[in-house]
């Protein structure tokens, strides 16, 4: 996909070892368990009336589907309105192109330092590394992102980037990297970070932010945040560059109201965030602050490919609240880094295979028990479990009806041995006679799991085959079912 592909591939090869490492790390287990339990409780408390929640989800899903149903028109309308407002709009096929566009603007402005508000798309395209390679400093200003950057890590959660660290770890990190005193006082640590970052805001040449919703009707970029770093990023430096995926567009201004309500409540249980920042133009004549230039970079990176398929399309409804990961029993156990990709958790499992290719991300769709907790809380009703099953099918090219799906890396996980197992399984199970003949199922079960039973019995006793099958017991009674 981009210059970071090799890094991602490296990560995926190490999926199981990474998982093992995370699971064996009591600190990671404890930090995530505590955080996820808290977030689940907060979300529950934020939706006291279930019928309101369900109606809001219906509405939000409809709004996102409406936007997707008109996506090319809305993108053009967004571009036309932003341009009329004085915002420059750029289009990028992939992360590399987007990085290049941003670098070009930086170089034109002779910029040396970029301050960043939180943006997952910029993480996706590894913008910080790209700018630093070209001798432009990129500094994260969201406190969580700042911590992660100090630690030379990547976010482990899309909403709370430093959720994998506890206070002691952050205190040590800030002490080592910035010279603050070691302290368990979060107020103190936060105040120190404020001071460190304020100086940088004053001096930054360019601010880079993400976008939560881009409103086509008015040409407005909406940002949701609590800290105020997003407002500073988009107001203080003389140039603001917003970067976003092409799917973030909504049709009308009023469409953002239910989406905003669901986003903040689903994410952290807040009825609203501290700031909802709507930007429609650069500084106008007579205005005393705000950037002189505003740019929007629209990034595709595989999204238009997802768009081709009626079922996979639902992936693009996502509003990035993170509720799916907060409620995921797998994410809770392994944390965000073990996935090895920008977007962890259930949304990552259905999005990354498209962005990186299934050949690269082949372990992601199977790393789910399909428990459905993600789909149950998704504010825009993305059927995540269904999409996981679809991607499992794509990975092994297991449905001849989807041979022209165009999913990158389709069939890359198909192995002759597993195909053979399922073919013989099907042969045995489509005939009642054959099934019963070898006490059918038991034989097949053993054949199917020859090397896998070890994985099962490592932490469980082996299941014991019954002395006679239900088929045999029913037949022995001689009532209905005695004859087939």
């Amino acid at each position, binding site marked *: 996909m981009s210059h970071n592909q090799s890094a991602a591939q490296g990560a995926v090869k190490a999926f199981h070892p990474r998982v093992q490492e995370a699971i064996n790390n009591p600190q990671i287990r404890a930090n995530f368990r505590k955080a996820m339990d808290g977030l689940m409780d907060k979300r529950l408390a934020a939706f006291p009336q279930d019928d309101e929640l369900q109606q809001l989800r219906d509405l939000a899903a409809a709004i996102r589907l409406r936007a997707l149903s008109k996506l090319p028109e809305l993108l053009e309308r967004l571009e036309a309105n932003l341009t009329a407002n004085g915002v420059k709009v750029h289009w990028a096929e992939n992360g590399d192109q987007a990085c290049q566009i941003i670098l070009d603007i930086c170089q034109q402005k002779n910029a040396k330092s970029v301050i960043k508000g939180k943006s997952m798309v910029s993480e996706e395209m590894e913008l910080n590394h790209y700018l630093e390679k070209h001798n432009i400093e990129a500094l994260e200003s969201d406190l969580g992102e700042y911590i992660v950057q100090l630690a030379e890590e990547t976010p482990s959660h899309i909403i709370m980037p430093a959720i994998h660290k506890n206070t002691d770890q952050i205190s040590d990190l800030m002490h080592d990297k910035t010279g603050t005193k070691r302290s368990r006082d979060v107020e103190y640590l936060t105040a120190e970070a404020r001071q460190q970052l304020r100086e940088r805001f004053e001096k930054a040449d360019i601010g880079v932010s993400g976008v939560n919703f881009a409103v086509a009707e*008015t040409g407005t970029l909406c940002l949701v945040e609590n800290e105020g770093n997003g407002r500073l990023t988009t107001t203080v430096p003389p140039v603001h560059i917003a970067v976003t995926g092409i799917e973030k567009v909504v049709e009308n201004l009023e469409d953002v109201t239910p989406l905003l309500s669901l986003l903040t409540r689903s994410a952290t249980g807040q009825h609203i965030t501290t700031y909802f920042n709507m930007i429609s133009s650069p500084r106008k004549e007579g205005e005393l*602050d705000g950037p002189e230039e505003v740019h929007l970079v629209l990034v595709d990176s595989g999204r238009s490919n997802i768009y081709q398929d009626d079922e996979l399309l639902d992936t693009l409804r996502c509003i990035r609240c993170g509720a799916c990961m907060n409620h995921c029993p797998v994410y809770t156990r392994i944390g965000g880094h073990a996935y090895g990709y920008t977007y962890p958790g259930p949304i990552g499992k259905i999005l990354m295979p498209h962005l990186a290719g299934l050949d690269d991300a082949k372990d992601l769709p199977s790393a789910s028990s399909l428990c459905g907790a993600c789909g149950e809380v998704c504010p825009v009703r993305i059927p995540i479990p269904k999409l996981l099953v679809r991607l499992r099918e794509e990975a092994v090219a297991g449905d001849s009806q989807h041979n022209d799906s165009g999913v990158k890396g389709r069939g890359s996980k198909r192995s002759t041995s597993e195909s053979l197992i399922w073919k013989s399984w099907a042969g045995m199970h489509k005939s009642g006679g054959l099934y019963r003949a070898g006490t059918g199922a038991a034989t097949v079960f053993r054949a199917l799991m020859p090397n896998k039973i070890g994985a099962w019995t490592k932490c469980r006793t082996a299941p014991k085959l019954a002395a006679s099958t239900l088929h045999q017991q029913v037949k022995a009674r001689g009532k209905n079912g005695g004859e087939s």
Partner: protein
Amino acid sequence: MSARDAILNRLRNRRDGELTAPVSDFSVVEAKQWSVSDRVDLFQQKIESVHAEVHRVSQTDWLDKLKALVQAKGLNNLLVPQKAQVGVDIRQQWSDDLPELLSYGQPIEGWKAELFSGVDGAVTDVRSAIAETGSLVLWPDNDQPRLMSLVPPVHFAIVDADQLKNTFHEVIRSEGWVNQGMPTNALLISGPSKTADIEQTLAYGVHGPKELIVLIRQ
């Protein structure tokens, strides 16, 4: 082909064909209506729940309250609008023994360092306010620029009770935002700046104001 055209072409020539838009039923949003007095109560409850300080005042005593708060908080100065009525009123009735009044009288480039480190508090009015979420609605302008409600550590917002609307949706609709055209920047502010990025522990004032003080004039 440009990236733009290539992307739009792929979206237009969608393999599974044209999509139809489902109906969006906003009734769940529109159903949220409260009486005028309930709106004030709800607004106060919501914005206090996110750490804002609320004082109910009258049209005649609000300035006394403001003066008392500014003194009680030990502020050395206060950034006040020049043209907005709240600013005019404050300037008219201020006295020399009170903290110095400042003006956002020039582009930010001319006094960035001073604004960032030398201003203790700021006063703004609001365009409207939202009961459902306890939010202030601001459209910053030449008189009350964007950084006024963001950079100083204490933000005083003066709200008239009759400015309270039920929901954000109602604000957009009833004020005709789309038809009149959006300003450079429109804002909802709900509480002081905060973060929970260190082990989900709330801390205030991480980047913006540490205190948000709302005077509701009834």
